[in-house]
Structures are given as C-alpha cells and as structure tokens.
C-alpha cells in the first residue's frame, strides 16, 4: 500500500482548521473573564505560546524525520515505555474529542435547534467524521482545501459587518490590572490549542522544510483569526456580555445589522464553526486510529472506526453533562492536564531526544 501524502497547502489548512475549530466559539468568554479589557493582548500572548509549542514539535519532528508522534514516543522512550505514553495520549485525545463533540451539541441545541435531541446533532457530526475516516486523510485534506475559501469569506463577512458596531472605548484602559491577568488568561487559552495532533500528520508532508513552515503558518493564521474575534467581542459586546455569554461568538454574529438590511445572518455564519469543527474532529479521530494501530501493531485501522465512534459518542454523553460542569473541570483540571500533554512532555522528550542523539554520536 502506498503511503498517502498531503501537500503543504493542505497541511497548512488542516493546521488552521485545528486551531480555529471550537475555540472560535468559546475562547472570548474565558479570556474576557480574566484579562478584562486586555483579552486581545492575552490572546496574542497565547499565540506566542502556541508558536513556541509548534517550535518544540518541529524540533521533535526533525530528530526523527518520517516518524509520527506515536513512533517518536517509541523511538525516544523505547518500545514499552513509548507504548504506555502513547496510550496516555490516546486517552487524552479521546476525552478531548468527546468533550468537543459535547460542546458542539450543546451549542447547536441551546442556540439554534432547541427541540432537536442533542444526541441527534452529535451523531450526525460523528457520522461525517466516520465517513471521513473511512475515506482517508487525503480526502480530508482535499475537503479542507475546498472549504477553506468559504471559512475565510464568512469570517471576513463577520468581521467587516461588525465594524459599524464597534465601541473603541470598550478596550480602554489598557493594562488596567497589570500584566498578571494577561499572563494567566493567555496561558490558559494556549493549552486549548491541541497543535500536537498535527505531529501525527507531519510525516505525510513530502517537502519537510515547507511543511514546517506550513505548520507555523497555519497555527499563526488560526490564532490571529481568534485574536481578531476576541477583540471584536470585547469591542462590540463589551466585557460584561462577552464574559457572561456561553457562546460569545454567536452572540456577536447575532448583533450584525447593516442598515436594517443585512441582519439575522448568524445562521449562515455558523458555517464557520461547523466547517472548522468538522476538520478538527476528523483530525482527532484520525490521530486516535493511527495511534491505536501503532500501539497495537495492527495492519489496518479500518476495523476500529465503528468501535471508536461509539466510544467517542459515549464519552461525549458522559463527560459533557452540562456546560457548568465542563466549565468547572476546565478551570480546575484541564489546564494542568493539557499543559502536561502539550508542553511539558514534548519538551522533556525533546531534551531526551537531543541528549540521546549526542550520546550516540560519541
């Protein structure tokens, strides 16, 4: 079987989709809650942290060119320790996927389709991801290329139509409470960017150098879009309503009104969320399948698809009991849990890898 390959542009778009997906719905409220008027600065900080994370990943990828995340684990830590670490990561991805699916279900049923059972919306999205998983990563990459212009155009519509409603006063004073809340909010936001997932797909890119640049570029573009959205939320809704809204970006889309003519367009703008969400959840699904295949040395992952989809939906139902519960978990547990998986472990692995390489040379 020929190993599939994806182009740098596709890799760029997938990274972008992963960054934007679901974060675009919820990021502003958390940031505005802590950093107040400076939420956008906090998001810039989070962008910087994310780019730093991507740099760590790139160093890792360079140490073992051609290997994906799970293979790198085994290369650095040895077969058995690597497998254990892979399993821990797989569990992380599983919980993450379930929670995201839960989040999307709650969004759709509480804002748009209150009478539709939440299970129905989630299953529909999962079916899309399952079909995608059956067809392979190359198809997802092409879908990404297809929908990317739509995401960009819709996002521009969102931004441009909101300009008349901006109150520049709303982001003043800058640095009201000093730098501490900005750092807190920025670092919190940064660990919701699971860019490490792209490490599973980076070996698929043929041109290594360009692939690395696409990795950085995709993360940067996605993050800048998010920052713009955070800025707009504060400028249009004000801090109070950004922070107290379950889905500030949707509230933002609801306020669009250009000359009493272009209004009530949030139903169309939801496409941004849905498309990026689809990319994100499919990537997560793929990486889980790949991880399982490597850990257990399976020849094919096809057999796992259905089983895993059931597992994900169960996790979604069990973890996302309601948004208050999830909010509390995110505050108390998820930050350190994600920090461990996204920065601490990759950083340590990086160090070990480099030291190992030096020792071997000697």
């Amino acid at each position, binding site marked *: 079987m020929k190993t599939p390959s994806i182009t740098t542009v596709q890799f760029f778009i997938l990274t972008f989709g992963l960054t934007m997906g679901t974060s675009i719905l919820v990021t502003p409220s958390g940031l505005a809650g802590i950093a107040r008027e400076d939420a956008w600065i906090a998001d810039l900080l989070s962008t910087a942290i994310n780019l730093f994370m991507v740099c760590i990943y790139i160093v890792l990828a360079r140490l073992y060119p051609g290997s994906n995340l799970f293979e790198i684990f085994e290369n650095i830590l040895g077969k058995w320790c690597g497998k254990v670490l892979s399993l821990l990561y797989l569990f992380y991805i599983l919980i993450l996927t379930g929670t995201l699916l839960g989040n999307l279900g709650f969004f759709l049923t*509480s*804002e*748009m*389709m*209150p*009478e*539709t*059972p939440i299970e*129905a919306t989630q299953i*529909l999205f999962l079916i899309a991801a399952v079909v995608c998983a059956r067809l392979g990563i190359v198809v997802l990459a092409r879908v990404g290329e297809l929908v990317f212009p739509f995401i960009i155009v819709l996002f521009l519509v969102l931004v441009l139509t909101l300009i008349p409603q901006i109150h520049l*006063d709303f982001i*003043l*004073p800058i640095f*009201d409470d000093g730098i501490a809340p900005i750092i807190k909010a920025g670092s919190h936001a940064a660990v919701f960017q699971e860019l490490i997932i792209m490490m599973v797909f980076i070996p698929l890119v043929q041109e290594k150098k360009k692939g690395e640049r696409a990795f950085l570029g995709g993360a940067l573009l996605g993050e800048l879009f998010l920052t713009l959205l955070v800025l707009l939320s504060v400028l249009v*809704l*004000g801090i*109070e*309503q950004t922070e107290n809204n379950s889905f500030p970006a949707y*509230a933002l889309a*609801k*306020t669009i*009104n250009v000359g009493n003519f272009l*209004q*009530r367009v949030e139903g169309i703008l939801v496409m941004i969320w849905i498309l990026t969400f689809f990319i994100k959840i499919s990537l997560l699904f793929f990486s889980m399948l790949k991880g399982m295949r490597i850990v257990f040395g399976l020849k094919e992952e096809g057999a796992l698809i259905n089983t895993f989809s059931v597992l994900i939906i169960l996790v979604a139902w069990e973890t996302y009991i309601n948004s208050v519960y999830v909010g509390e978990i995110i505050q108390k547990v998820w930050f350190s849990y994600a920090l461990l998986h996204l920065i601490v472990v990759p950083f340590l692995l990086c160090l070990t890898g480099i030291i190992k390489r030096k020792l071997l040379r000697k």
Partner: protein
Amino acid sequence: MLCTKQKVSHISFLLLLVILLAILPGCWSKKELNELAIVMAMGIDYDDSDYEVSIQVMKSSEVGKSEGGSSDGAPVITYRTSGKTIPEALQRMLSVAPRVPYLSHIRVLIFGESLARSGVSDALDFLSRNQQLRTDFFMLVSKGGKASEILDVVTSFENIPANSLYSSILLSEKKWAVTGRVTLQQFITQMERRGSNPVLPGVQVVGNKKEGESHENKKRVVPMTLLKHVGLAVFNRDRLVGWLGEPLSKSTNYALNEVNTTSGYIEGPEGGIVGFEVRRTESDIKVKLGEDNVPEFTVKMTMETDLNSVQSTVDLQKSDTVEWINRKIEQKVDSYVTRDLRIIQEKYGTDVFGFGEALHRKYPKLWKKLRDHWDEQFKQCKITVKSKVAIRRIGSIVQPVKREMNEQ
C-alpha cells in the same frame, strides 16, 4: 460471486442514502408561519409577587388588508397572563392564544413603571438567557402606568402599534433628541459597569384609555388616544429613580453623544428670536483631576448648525451678526446643558453619562479607589460643558422677512 456481493453492497449503500435523504433535510422542530404567533411587542409588569406579561401579537390575516381599509378586525391582539417567572407567564399564554408565541421579532419591550422602580435585572435575565430573543429591540418604560396599557392602544397611522412605537423611537432619536434608542445590550453594559448607569425612554398613553382600546380610535381624524414619548427615565443600576423632562433629556443625550439633529432658539441681538437647527454633534468627555484628586469632567461638544427661522430684524448679510449668533448659541448650550447635567447630578446622584467610565479609562488607578462609592463621589464632581458651534447654512433666503418688509 464477488461481483454480485459488491453490487449488493452498492445497492444497499444507495438505499441508505435515499433513507438519509428522507430523514435529514426535514427540520426536527419546524414551525410553519401559520403555527406561530409573531410577537411584536412585549410588556412586563410586576404585581406583588407575579410577573404580568402582555404580548402584542400580529394578526397576519388582518395586516395584509390595511391598504383598502376595509378590515373590520384589529390588526393585533394583546394577550395577558401572569406567572412567577416570565417564561411561566408565556407558557400560560397558550391557555388563551391558539398559537405558540414566537419572540424573535419583538420590536419593542415595555416595562411598567412599578417594575422599573423595583428593579429590572430579574426580567433582564430571562431576556438575555432566552435563545429566541435577539438584542435588537428597543426598550421603553411606561411612565406612571403599566406596560400593558401601552399595548392596548390602537394606533391609526401605523397599523401595528408596536411598529408605531418602533419607528417613533427611530425618528425621534434622529430628529428630536429627547427620547433615546436603547437596546438590551447597551442597557446591560451600562447597568453592569460601575461607572455608568442606564437610561430608558418613556412612553405614556395620552387621552382616554378605554377609547384607545377600540378600533374606533382608528376611524377618527383626531384620535381619542395617542401614545406619547416622554423624555428619559433615569436608572440607578437596575432601578428607576426618576424622570427627566424634555430639556433635561436633551442635555443628557448631548452628553451621551446621542444627538443627531435637533433644534433650538436664542434671543436675537435686536429682540426677536433666532431659531437654529443642530445638524451634527459630536461630544466627548474629558477628565481632569482637580484639588485632592477630585475628578472634574468637561463635556466637549462640537456642533454644526443651520439657521432655520429668523423671527427678528437682524442683518444677516454681515458676518459679524452670524458670528454673534454663533457665540450666543455656544453660550446658551454651555449654560443650559451644564445646568441640566448638574440638576441630574444633584437630584438623582446617578451617573447616567458614563463619567465614571471616562475616569476609569483615563485614570485606572484612581478609579480603583473610587469605584466602590462612585455614587457619592459623583455628586461632588465638577461638571462643565464646552461647546464649539459652527453655523454652516442660513437657508434659502438671506435677510429675515421682517427686515425686508420694514425696509420696503
């Protein structure tokens, strides 16, 4: 054998697609237009322990006929129920209404005065929590009465009373500067911030309330009953604390930078009256620290004005005259608006101008000390108004008609 197996799977796949096609495009919670009662206006009153909710629902069958004027029925129906919470009252609406109230198209929301005086935050919670409601409707307070009274009046110019209220607000905000257009979003932001307090425009029934409920009201050239917009209601956080009359409301709107066009007059140099129209205004709040770090606020206004009626014999061909009028307008605006703002400051002690927020933006450190007792602090601040007026146009004729007449 293999071939047929593939065929079977293809066919079953196609079948699955067909079934999905049948299931997926249907809307789970679809509602046809004829199953909905489109709520145009909602009134909320509070009576001892219950919310009394009135909704004005559009009768679509009657609205289409408006052109011919042959319709016999009223274009809207007002339903009224009460409950411990607003949604409960809305649910109870189904006991009298044949359709489900649909809230997305509300144009105006009216609070009864007693509810406004006891605090509207609980009502606002429902309004912002509900997913059907948007934030683009205008809010009003029924002055000296219940919200439901307003929704009972049949208006003759606009067929649907809610639309009448809505366009009155839009227009008077543009042309008159005495009422205001306040949306839910604005109100909540101003209410939740320490350094600002909200205002809401008031509305009142003028004339005979009983007559106004009947369709007969529409058939008269001089309607028995009218809806009148009456100045602004001043809030302290979520409670109504007082009403502003016409001049005070206008001054407040000047300070809030909500004035588009309005008109005024000054006494002419040789007696008589010179009327002017304000075309464009821009106002900005400047903060300065005085003695003992007591903040001082200056409202800086720039206005463009046109002369619109010269009831005097001044010589408008001299630029000195125009200059004089210009200065006179500045003086009048300065003294009147300053006086009005100080009245509001002393009488109600509630910062509806957002001075506190201006202070917060300029001196964040000082604000931290003052924010918890801003209401008392606000009363001691010095407020001044500085306007800069430019007369741009004097209209289609040059000299006043009275002057021309006297010269002949």
